[in-house]
């Protein structure tokens, strides 16, 4: 098969975006259906929380619907969509920080972070490898985490990541390198012995 499913989806996206820009709500519905899972999984890896991921995904498509006319080049829809999603993730994270600031009690995430940092054995006994990796991924700085998600899970080229985030390819590579190193350091410091090793 010459084309991958991702390529087919991308081709369909371009057609659907053009139709949506002309006011075809039917096409936009299909566009949402095509990308919903991808955006949800990006948000899920960013937050590690289903509810927040659903919230961000819905906000993303609301923003896409409102600003669809701003896309001049439909071929860049994919990058634009990821950019909107990442911005929504950042906004949601700020909202969560404000909530935590005004909250008397610490959030579950904060508690989970403490467990990872200070009680790795308990954390390991309680969670599967996937959950632990997801939790550790969440602890990365935003800029490194976003690059890792885009490269590792969305399979984007460095050129595409650079275009999406408005940075240079070298910056994207640098963030990815230090992100991976930081992940490894966190695992080593926690004394975790993950099954994949």
């Amino acid at each position, binding site marked *: 098969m010459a084309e991958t499913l991702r390529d087919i989806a991308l081709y369909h996206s371009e057609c659907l975006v053009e139709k949506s820009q002309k006011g075809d709500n039917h096409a936009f*519905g299909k566009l949402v259906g095509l990308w919903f899972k991808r955006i949800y*999984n990006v948000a899920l890896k960013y937050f590690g929380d289903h509810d927040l991921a659903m919230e961000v995904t819905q906000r993303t498509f609301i923003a896409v619907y409102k600003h669809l006319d701003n896309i001049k080049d439909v071929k860049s829809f994919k990058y634009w969509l990821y950019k909107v999603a990442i911005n929504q993730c950042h906004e949601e994270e700020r909202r969560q920080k404000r909530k935590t600031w005004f909250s008397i009690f610490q959030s579950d995430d904060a508690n989970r972070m403490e467990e990872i940092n200070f009680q790795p054995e308990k954390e390991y006994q309680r969670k599967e490898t996937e959950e632990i990796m997801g939790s550790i991924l969440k602890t990365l700085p935003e800029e490194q985490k976003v690059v890792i998600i885009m490269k590792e899970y969305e399979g984007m080229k460095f050129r595409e990541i650079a275009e999406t985030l408005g940075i240079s390819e*070298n910056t994207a590579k640098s963030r990815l390198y230090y992100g991976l190193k930081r992940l490894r350091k966190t695992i080593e410091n926690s004394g975790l012995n993950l099954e994949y090793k």
Partner: protein
Amino acid sequence: MGTEDFNKALITYLYDEMSTEERQQFEIAMENNPELKREFEELKEMRQGLAQIQDKEVMEPFFLWGKQGSDSWVSMFKRRNLLMFKPFIAVAASLVIVMLIGYLTNFTITYKDQSLYIGFNESSTNGSEAIYTQDQVAQLVNEEIAKNNAYIFSKLTETENNLDNRFASLENSQNTQLTPSYADADVVTREELDIFLANVRSNNLKVLQTYLQSSSVQQQEYFQAVITEFSDFVENQREEDLRLIRRSLINLQENQQAQKDETDQILASILTTVNNQNN
């Protein structure tokens, strides 16, 4: 090649984005540099760890599920946006309704002379019947005292007249009794007659004093009863007015709630209509 360049090359190699020529050069460099090879293995292992995180299946929201292609998701987005503003709209509508009702009923709240007045129609500063100033209360009390004094004075005058009449009749009676003895008047000495009259006067004086004392006590009791009843009257009137204000406020609150419910129903009806039209 600097450290940063090595790092970026390592990442590029790790993710297989090097050209064939670059790849061959980097592999040679890695064979000659065990530290670089070890770092590559670490990063590769890290990638294996990240690969453990799989994509999660997710149910698309109900507005897509089973109705893909319809406009239902559009109305959902619009409804969601509208719902974000719903609390503000509800608060604004409630405020408008309250202000309208307040305007129509001439509801006034004023603070004057260290007193808070709440009422409908007329400004309470014009005087609810139950609210008197200190001067007005003093004037009312003085009026009542004056009336009471006039009453007491009239009673005293009447009593005095009665006593005069009774004294006169008694004197006449004594004179009448004495008249048959006039013939024997020479038998009664002048001194005995004076003693008799003095006794009569003394007795009359005692009766009068007793009457006056009794009357004074009765008047004091009556005055105290009047003051007590007046105080109770003012207190009852105040409580009655407060009950009336409370009842009015409850009615106002119920009206607001009814208006709010009606507004919600209208909004829901509009949303349903828009949704149906879109469908």
